[in-house]
């Protein structure tokens, strides 16, 4: 098996150009949960963990840039993320347990593309941009267009996620995150919800809502968003938001939960978040 652990981005891209079938490795918290034959049978691996350019959190030109390999422990503890993107800090703190957070990366959560990935609804409401790096060069994709179908992403052959860019959110917006699983820690979500919204002059002026584990990919609930913007901020709209959210999704029955339970819980979570917004 080919195995590379490049020390720079330049070397990383060179390897990918030579061998587009190399499997990128980040925290390996998804990849190593596999049969030994499967991981030993990979054509080759490219460890991204020692590439300094792919790790870290920094403001650049009005956006906070987070390297794909940055583990959730760093995202959880980052003062920049806590201050401007609390919805993401909260999501990071709810992923797995301590050991998982020390290794699991933001880019791995995105590339693994599970509909239950906890950071993904947060990235959707933050309207993140994703910088992809590959043999053809660099391109930027709105995160809303990154997931193409069940576990299908915009990543082409030999392409990796380089960074995520988070534009500064609207001043004074409320950011809320809620994960519902079997227990507090170390449980894959049955439903996960993120909201970024603002009220001004008694009206809902901004309302971005996303959820995971309720469809083939994490989704923005645009029907709810459209119905909420412009409404006056009173408790009655919360019921409407919950009701519309339940109608907007297509959850499935699986080992973790049922479609019916997911719809019900989603409606409750959205209703409560909206109540908190208008209170």
């Amino acid at each position: 098996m080919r195995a590379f652990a490049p020390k720079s981005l330049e070397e990383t891209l060179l390897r990918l150009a030579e061998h587009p079938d190399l499997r990128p490795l980040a925290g390996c918290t998804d990849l190593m949960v596999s049969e030994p034959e499967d991981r030993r049978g990979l054509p080759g691996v490219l460890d991204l963990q020692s590439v300094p350019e792919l790790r870290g959190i920094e403001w650049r030109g009005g956006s906070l840039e987070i390297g794909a390999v940055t583990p959730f422990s760093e995202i959880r503890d980052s003062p920049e993320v806590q201050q401007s993107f609390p919805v993401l800090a909260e999501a990071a703190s709810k992923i797995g347990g301590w050991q998982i957070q020390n290794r699991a990366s933001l880019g791995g959560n995105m590339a693994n593309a599970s509909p239950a990935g906890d950071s993904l609804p947060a990235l959707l409401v933050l309207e993140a941009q994703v910088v992809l790096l590959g043999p053809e060069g660099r391109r930027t994709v709105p995160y809303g267009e990154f997931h193409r179908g069940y576990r299908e992403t915009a990543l082409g052959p030999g392409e990796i996620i380089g960074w995520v860019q988070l534009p500064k959110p609207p001043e004074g917006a409320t950011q809320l995150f809620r994960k519902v699983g079997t227990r507090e820690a170390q449980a894959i979500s049955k439903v996960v919800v993120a909201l970024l919204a603002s009220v001004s002059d008694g009206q809902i002026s901004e309302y971005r809502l996303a959820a995971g584990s309720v469809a083939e990919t994490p989704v923005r609930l645009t029907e709810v968003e459209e119905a909420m913007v412009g409404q006056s901020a009173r408790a009655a709209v919360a019921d409407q938001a919950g009701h519309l959210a339940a109608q907007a999704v297509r959850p499935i029955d699986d080992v973790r939960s049922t479609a019916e339970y997911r719809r019900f819980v989603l409606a409750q979570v959205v209703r409560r978040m909206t109540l908190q917004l208008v209170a």
Partner: protein
Amino acid sequence: MKSELVVNGKAVVIEGHPMDRLLDILREELDLTGTKEGCGEGECGACTVLLNGEPVLSCLVPRVQCESATIDTVEGLATGESRSFLERFVDSGGVQCGACTPGIIVTAWALLCDNPHPSRQEVQEALAGNLCRCTGYEGIHRAFEHGEGSE
């Protein structure tokens, strides 16, 4: 592939498949059988070791990511400063069947290094990824209550 690393303060050279698990390297190549396998898929925490000082699950770390790493296992904690915590852990009833114990000791020691006097909730959060089916965690919590300065 060949890699050099430092395990419990000693430099070692290992060789094998890049996607072998650190857990197997420790147990089978380095004869450090203190680290246990529970689930083998990241859920139970029994295999916790320190990788460059941070608690991680050795069942999910491939060899290719061990090059130049510093690893500390439960064997390394049996001597030195951590010894008195270990004794307290045993005396307070933190161990029953012992399957989870090496992982819990490693995670607990990492917590104490960051935070010598953790609250009950901080202990609970740190140990959220370490499952114990025997003790109900009470004996484990007691081991933290009798630290120096907390009496």
